[in-house]
């Protein structure tokens, strides 16, 4: 198994632990990962608010580079995953837009055909690698640990086909495979606040707070997420949430960290210490 890897800006920055744990887990599973050559920012949600065509071209450049190889592209960041898929869909649905974008890409000697396939690591782990394969490598089952699977929005909405949009379950299955207990709750896909935590904190913080509070109420010892922005919002703003609402002290892990731990990888390899709210107590106390 071989994939191209589109890190996106977050996994090189605040989401460093995601990259570390993602690469470590895939390596341990024997999956070959090569970073997409000279990738650029996907444009995220912000660029779409400035210039539509350019935002398509921005993502288009990455896709054009990806098309040079045959392997599927893995985009672990939800925003990147959404933007790249949205770009493919948009260019497919709107021929005029496609004409503009492809001709602009030509100016940079890039050839866009629309043949790339952008996948999320959840999809790859469950559907390509397979839960059985992962289960075989679980050396250190996380028995007794109660985890709240939190998908956030853009992994499942609106383009993902690998999971249910209302009640996604791929991460639940991975958590179960890791031996931990999965908290059932209805806020799995509710928005964490996105970039509003920074721009309009009075709105953004409340959203993050709601999620943290409900997870705690349902007995979760940690929240597990596949999205660097969700992780950042839920983990990074807990001090401010404490000031405004109440202190929750809920560690927020990446699902790759959870699987990695179960597979016996070290906390260091997996970047566990990069969490602002320490997960050590939760992990030790189980």
């Amino acid at each position, binding site marked *: 198994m071989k994939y191209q890897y589109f890190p996106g800006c977050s996994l090189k920055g605040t989401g460093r632990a995601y990259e570390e744990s993602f690469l470590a887990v895939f390596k341990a599973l024997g999956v070959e990962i090569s970073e997409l050559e000279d990738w650029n920012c996907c444009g995220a949600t912000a660029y779409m608010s400035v210039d539509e065509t350019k935002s398509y071209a921005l993502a288009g450049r990455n896709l054009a580079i990806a098309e040079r190889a045959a392997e599927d592209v893995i985009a672990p960041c939800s925003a990147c995953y959404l933007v790249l898929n949205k770009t493919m869909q948009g260019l497919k649905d709107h021929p005029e837009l496609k004409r503009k974008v492809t001709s602009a890409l030509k100016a940079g000697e890039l050839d866009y055909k629309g043949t790339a396939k952008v996948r999320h690591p959840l999809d790859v782990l469950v559907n390509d690698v397979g839960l059985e394969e992962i289960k075989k490598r679980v050396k250190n089952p996380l028995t007794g640990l109660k985890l709240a699977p939190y998908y956030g929005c853009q992994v499942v909405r609106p383009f993902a086909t690998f999971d*249910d949009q*209302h*009640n996604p379950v791929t991460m639940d299955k991975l958590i179960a495979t890791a031996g931990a207990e999965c908290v059932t*709750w*209805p*806020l799995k896909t509710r928005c964490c606040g996105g970039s509003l935590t920074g721009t309009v904190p009075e709105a953004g913080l409340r959203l993050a707070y*709601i999620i943290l509070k*409900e997870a705690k109420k349902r007995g979760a010892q940690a929240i597990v997420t596949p999205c660097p922005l969700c992780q950042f919002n839920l983990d990074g703003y807990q001090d401010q949430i404490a000031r405004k609402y109440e202190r929750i002290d809920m560690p927020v892990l990446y699902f790759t960290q959870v699987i990695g731990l179960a597979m016996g990888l070290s906390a260091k390899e997996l970047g566990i210490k990069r969490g602002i709210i320490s997960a050590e107590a939760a992990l030790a106390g189980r």
Partner: protein
Amino acid sequence: MTENKPKQENLPRVGFYICHCGTNIAGVIDPAEVQKYAAGLPGVAVSRDYKYMCSDPGQEMIAEDIRKHKLERLVVAACSPLLHEETFRKAAAKGGLNPFYFQMVNIREHASWVHTDKKAATEKAKDLVRAAITRVRYHQALDKKRVPVDPNVLVVGGGIAGIHAALTLANAGKKVTLVEREATIGGHMALFDKTFPTLDCAACILTPKMSAVKAHPNITLWTYSEVEKVEGYVGNYKVMVKRKPRYVIEDLCVGCMECIDACVFKEPKFHDKFNQGLGKRKPVYIDFPQATPKVVLVDPETCIQLKTGKCKKTCADVCDRKAFDFEQKAEMKEIQVGAIVLATGFKAHDAKRDPQYGYGKYPGVYTALEIERLVNASGPTSGEVVLRDGRHPKEVGIVHCVGSRDAKTNKWCSRVCCMYSLKLAHLIKEHSGAEVYNFYIDMRAPGKAYEEFYDKLLSEGVHFIRGRVAEVNDWAMTPEEEGRLIVRVEDTLAGFVRRIPVDMLVLSTGLEPQADAQEVRRRFNIGCGTEGFFQERHPKLAPVNTFTDGIYIAGACQAPRDIPDTVAQAGAAAAEALALIDAGFVELEPNTSHVIEEECCGCKSCLPLCPYSAITFEEVKKKAVINEVLCKGCGVCAAACPSGSIRQNLFEDDEIFSEIQGVLAK
């Protein structure tokens, strides 16, 4: 045949007419220009344009011209031949011309209504007219064949539509076979407690009709049966019906139900389909006390005797009429009928397809049909509104449009949900005293006394919140919300989002085509619309007819509709069937094929192509022969005869080739 072949100098005299259809055609196509153009084409003796060709004066004009100008062929450019071909054939006949010396040009549905460029549409009309005038020269004089109609009728589906149609036909003296898939007739209506807007009890109005069906000397009632195969054509259908085994001899059982008491299972413990799973039943059961026929049946999935052959058979022992027969097998019956009424009904939308409403996840969420049983005096709780956990709900929400008006499930409005939701709101409030919230998108109450019923509910203090519910879950924000179902909805009239905690949530599921509607329509050779309901012949003018003559549709198999409309439609379908039967015969379109014996080489290429086995091989002469009574006129054999020795009336090679040439000649 050559004498009809026009030689260039001696073309038959054609009369050409173009219809304005008010402005329907003339608004886009210039009839005068087309008329002038046609007048200049070879063989055209008369060319006219007229406001409404299909009107009496229009037809009279044609007949008059035929006589006066000795016309030998007729071409009318107007609407679709599917609408008015017959009209103008009759006009031709009135003028003394064989009606098949006529060709119709469709310049309304296929041109003026679908094009905006007037010039291009007029040019298209000219091309089509030229093609018809070229083609009509090759037409032959033909006769329609008359075939007698079998006076018996098959009604498929024993819901209120099928029951009403069967009774109407039987009362008119026709022999009717009513086939129902379930063990009892009654359909969805038998599940209901009350009916809107009058709130009369469904059982009180339905069960007398059910017994009337059973007692009627002209009706043969076959429940637990399905139509397997349909052959033949209008007036002469041959139908195979499969009668599934009940393991109880229907004629012997008197419905005393002592066997149910005697069953080795002391308590009912199996899923009770009739009660939507809210109750339980035994392997030997009867759906409900008024089931018709009142005959028990045995479920082979759960009966120990049928599963293992090792039961004490206490049920059979207690039956003094020895009605049990565990060896019973499915039985195939063949019947001959002239007409068929399809009243196969609908299927309720599966609420699990809308996971945001939590059906199947939260026990407090119910479908409307479940509530129908719950509020029903003869239902599993004897009409007590009680939650699955035994609590009595204090607040109840009713979500409209579940599986309706939604691109993700069904796009259509299911038409009855608003009204039945009002009815359920009333019944729940009446039975339990709970606060009831109706969440609706638009309130649709367009029937007689429906708006008044809405008024009544408003005055009863039921809450009406205009908004489509986004989600239902158990995520509590406040202490009051703890342990309850939270409905999140925008109160669109207030302009903000509300969270409303309830104990019970009712999903007003929409009406969908039956799961096997596609199979059924294929079996009966009729069409379905894109949404999957059976397709009527014309949405306004032939709502119970189908594109297959002699097959009629009634009730919710055609589209969602309420009981009054269903009954009216069932009556209409019965009337259409009666009109067919009482005419005594049908005229068949003479578009059949025939083999020219001296041209046939006997290669048999045509034989397997005919789906009606109308082509046989004459072993002495070694030639193919077509039985024109069996031939339905598709023309596949004519297209495939490798030596061109099969002709199809009305669609001869010469006719089609000349039409191609005519359309393209400039």
